[in-house]
């Protein structure tokens, strides 16, 4: 088995504009607080359906989006709240969506597993693992053929990298020279299945640790990075996006992170060693990045406190918005299936 070779960072925090660093911090925090409240609301029965939280993985969404232009697009997953927030989506509309309200970003038709905001280039979470790889590849084809200049980042999990769609999509993008980046969020689990063996658990879902090496199979660059460091993510994505945009060279980025909570809310994680959860919490990207900002003198305690307050407020308002919004009229169930409505029959 290969050992994980995490790519050395080259950019130092000092080389990144302060606003971007603070933006990353705030973004991570916005995701964290949103997700924490989501957990509470789910437990209280205010959120129907399945909820998969992004807690502990925030550095990825923040790092990716820090490297993108507004016109760039992403495909997302069932664990997609963080991607949506970082890409610039409205917390309030996402919260309303997850509550099933008509003011939701998808009018209450999609819910957490299907949140999408095409207006900001968030092409959709997906309930089918691995479905986003081809979809994003197609969006990249449109960028190329229509000369639109955007890059697509297909974000999905380590589990999604075992789906056949991964293989097919990456190969297609490679031979067609499409402006796309395949980003694997390796949170060490696909539901209850570990990426590689854990203490007392020999299971694994792949036989190599460094999925960046899979680039070799397609003749494209691939790299494995520390997914709990937003600067490492930013750096890798920036390089990949440039290659993609200018030369049409796709890349694979494999980011190592971990899942602090259960697969979905309500998962007691009986399959998971307790120490593993503890170890994951210790790797939390937010305090780590906060410490760095302070230590390097990039931000003051006051500045960060102010950000933290803003975030609390935004989340509270989002919840308020969701709660106050009405449920959709039942007859709305029959609209939005076809663009050429009314369709003669449903």
């Amino acid at each position, binding site marked *: 088995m290969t050992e994980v070779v995490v790519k050395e960072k080259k950019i130092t925090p000092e080389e990144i504009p302060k606003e971007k660093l603070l933006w990353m911090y705030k973004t991570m925090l916005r995701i964290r607080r949103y997700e924490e409240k989501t957990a509470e609301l789910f437990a209280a029965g205010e959120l129907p359906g399945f909820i998969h939280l992004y807690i502990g993985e925030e550095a990825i969404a923040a790092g990716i989006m820090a490297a993108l232009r507004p016109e760039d697009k992403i495909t997302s997953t069932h664990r997609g709240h963080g991607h949506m927030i970082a890409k610039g989506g409205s917390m309030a509309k996402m919260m309303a969506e997850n509550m*099933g309200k008509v003011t939701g970003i998808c009018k209450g*038709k999609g*819910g957490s597993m299907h949140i999408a905001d095409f207006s900001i280039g968030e092409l959709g979470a*997906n309930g*089918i693992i691995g479905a986003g790889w081809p979809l994003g590849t197609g969006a990249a084809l449109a960028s190329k053929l229509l000369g639109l200049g955007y890059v697509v980042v297909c974000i999905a999990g380590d589990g999604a990298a*075992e789906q*056949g769609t991964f293989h097919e999509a990456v190969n297609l993008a490679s031979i067609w020279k499409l402006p796309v980046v395949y980003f694997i969020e390796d949170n060490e689990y696909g539901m209850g299945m570990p990426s590689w063996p854990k203490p007392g658990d020999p299971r694994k879902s792949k036989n190599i640790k460094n999925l960046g090496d899979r680039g070799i199979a397609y003749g494209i660059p691939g790299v494995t990075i520390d997914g709990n460091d937003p600067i490492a993510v930013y750096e890798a994505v920036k390089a990949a996006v440039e290659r993609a945009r200018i030369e049409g060279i796709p890349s694979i980025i494999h980011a190592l992170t971990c899942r602090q909570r259960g697969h979905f809310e309500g998962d007691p994680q009986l399959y998971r060693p307790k120490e593993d959860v503890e170890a994951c919490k210790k790797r939390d990207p937010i305090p780590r990045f906060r410490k760095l900002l302070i230590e390097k003198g990039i931000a003051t305690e006051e500045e960060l406190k102010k950000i933290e307050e803003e975030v609390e407020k935004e989340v509270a308002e989002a919840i308020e918005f969701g709660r106050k919004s009405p*449920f*959709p009229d039942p007859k709305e169930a029959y609209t939005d299936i076809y663009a050429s409505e009314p369709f003669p029959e449903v």
Partner: protein
Amino acid sequence: MPKKTFSYAIYEALKQEMVRDPTVIIMGEDVGRFGGCFGVTRDLWKIFGEERVRDTPISESAFIGGGAGAAASGLRPVVELMFVDFFGVAMDQIYNQAAKLRYMSGGQCKFPMVLRTTIGGGFRAAAQHSQVLYALFAHVPGIKVVVPSTPYDAKGLLITAIRDDDFVMYFEHKKLYPIEGEVPDEPYTIPFGVADVKREGDDVTVVAMAYMVHEAMKAADELAKEGISVEIVDPRTLAPLDTDTIVKSVEKTGRLVVVDEDYIYFGATGEIITRVVERGVALKAPPKRVATPRVPIPFSPTLEDEILPNKDKIKKAIKETMK
């Protein structure tokens, strides 16, 4: 007889068959240490070990096709597709391989594989985790389609499925898991192609499957108070489909309502109605169907409740046939 849940009945069938026959193995996503996404396989991995209860990566084509290859080579795999909604990533291995290789080879091999999967809405799980879809598998050749509605049927039909030398798809409605019923402790089998009259009645025949049997039962209870006597026929398997029992019931009642949580068109409701009318059975009123419209299952509770069939819609349809 002891009372058990539908979920436990399935677990018990799996356990007993694994004890009886060492070639029975289980494969799927999180069927092991997680205990199954809905807790059906529970502790089987502890009892039988991780060689026989195999957690897979998220690679449905590989492990369903792998199940077929293993079945043709001496194993008797019970493979789990977590939600039927995911069938699209592995349909070729299901319908072109497992279902047809025996025929294409002129009968050289057999496929004693069971593909268990979950169906059904009502959990606010939206368009890709709420579907039923069994009609798709009943349409194509080479697949036996089993749709239990009670704990008793679940156990007996699953044991039949595991012992059957052919490829069987076994559909578990998620709303049925907690439902309790009498289930014998010992193993038993229920033959395929034999419908069960779940309730006798004289005025209207309701054909219903899976969870809809229970909604139909509630409707029948309420209508009984209004003086309408409903007979409920549960086909239990869609392929083969026990047309005789359905026809016999409609011959008696002269009225037919088919209830199905699957999408309404090109599915089970049309098939069952046609099986009856092509036999020339005299009907006192046009047959009716109660099913999910051809709409992706929406997330929001108000929307999902609007489209799913339920007791009230069934009552309304029955009453319309009585006009």
